[in-house]
């Protein structure tokens, strides 16, 4: 991995014709310029900028948590904290649904874990056809900055596994920053929430997993 540097829009990242512009960058008279505020990273010959702030940018394959905003004749409209609402079609529910009883499956205000399977001009399409997806019946939902989600999950899920093991809760992290915590006791859930907030707060500390091990060591 190469060094990362903070870059602002319109700033030159590299001054060479050999590099390729990746996400958040643009080629302009021989150099690569940034279009967004974030961390510039060079991989081989590809230059890209990782955003550090702003609203959640939905991508195909992301598992997100959303709230049902509206019921239409053939599906649900779900708010996933993105610039646009997502649509969950009737066909994407892996069970028989009575067309007259969509609200029996999910009513307005219900939360659900969904997966983005397509993004096009017409909107974002989400699905329930995968493991771990479905309506949320119990537990608590909390919110963190979507750009801090990779730190909450940790390298190959190490951080979230640590929190799960130490609190005994089942935690689902949506890429849009919403997190669903389900434990046996409310105290456990609140403890997990506190731990996640602690991670989000210290997300720039290096060796955060070790620090969290210490954090749990003190509490137990």
């Amino acid at each position: 991995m190469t060094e990362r540097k903070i870059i602002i829009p319109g700033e030159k990242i590299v001054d060479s014709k050999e590099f390729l512009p990746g996400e958040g960058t643009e080629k302009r008279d021989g150099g690569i310029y940034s279009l967004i505020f974030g961390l510039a990273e060079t991989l081989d010959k590809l230059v890209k900028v990782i955003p550090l702030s702003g609203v959640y940018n939905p991508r195909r394959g992301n598992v997100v948590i959303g709230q049902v905003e509206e019921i239409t004749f053939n599906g649900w409209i779900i708010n996933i904290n993105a610039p646009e609402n997502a649509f969950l079609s009737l066909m994407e529910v892996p069970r028989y649904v009575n067309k007259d009883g969509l609200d029996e499956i999910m009513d307005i205000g219900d939360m659900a874990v969904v997966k983005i399977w397509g993004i096009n001009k017409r909107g974002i399409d989400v699905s329930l056809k995968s493991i771990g997806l479905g309506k949320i019946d119990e537990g608590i939902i909390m919110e963190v900055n979507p750009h801090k989600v990779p730190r909450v999950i940790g390298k190959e899920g190490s951080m979230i596994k640590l929190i799960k093991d130490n609190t005994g809760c089942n935690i689902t992290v949506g890429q849009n920053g919403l997190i669903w915590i389900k434990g046996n006791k409310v105290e456990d859930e609140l403890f997990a929430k506190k731990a996640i907030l602690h991670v989000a707060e210290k997300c720039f500390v290096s060796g955060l997993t070790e620090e969290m091990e210490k954090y749990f060591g003190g509490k137990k």
Partner: protein
Amino acid sequence: MPEIKRKSGRKADEMRKISAKVGIIPNANGSAMFVSGKTIAIAAVYGPKEHHPRNQRNPAKGTLRCTYNMMSFSVTDRIRPGQNRRSTEISKITEWALEPIVMLDKYPGKVVDVYIHMTQADAGTRCAGINAAAMALAHAGIPMKNIVSSIAAGKLDKTIVLDLDKYEDSEFEEGEGSTDIPMTFTSDGKLTHIQVDGYITPEQLKEAMKMAREASKKIYEVQKQALKDSLGKEK
């Protein structure tokens, strides 16, 4: 060029003390503050989000919606809160100054809301507002071609001066009086907005533009530093 003694003691090409801060409003997607002497502007960016009312949305590209507002306590005499003729005009001017740099084509049918509030006003408010809004937009992660920096140049009697303050803008009446020319530049010196009211010759206008362009580079450095410092805090 005849020398002029400014009431504030500044040189003709000297601007007021400036400072900036990014990330001041936790609930906004992006926010910034810009201080120029006694003028303080804060900007908050919300979005991109669904455009309401829906009949105003543009399916080809996103919309930038700016709202400029002077707080009732920002000037010595309390001003009536709410939109008035002047603030509506400045909102539109701010939109036009920012539109060339913001890449709205990535968000068709969406809107980016920019709210600019002046907590203290001492002339040069639209410039401070644009500077704060540019930083807030970058902080909100919206793709932009560049960052803009805004500064006013002007004319006091026959002398070209930089960054007029309240006294020079509205009370100075010696000789030919004063002319205020707010301008906005990108970091590579391109003009995105200019306003002139008052008398000025084309030669003097060129001179004023040159002076403002130099000053805009200094503002750009302050904006850049403020954006980079906003991450340093958390590190």
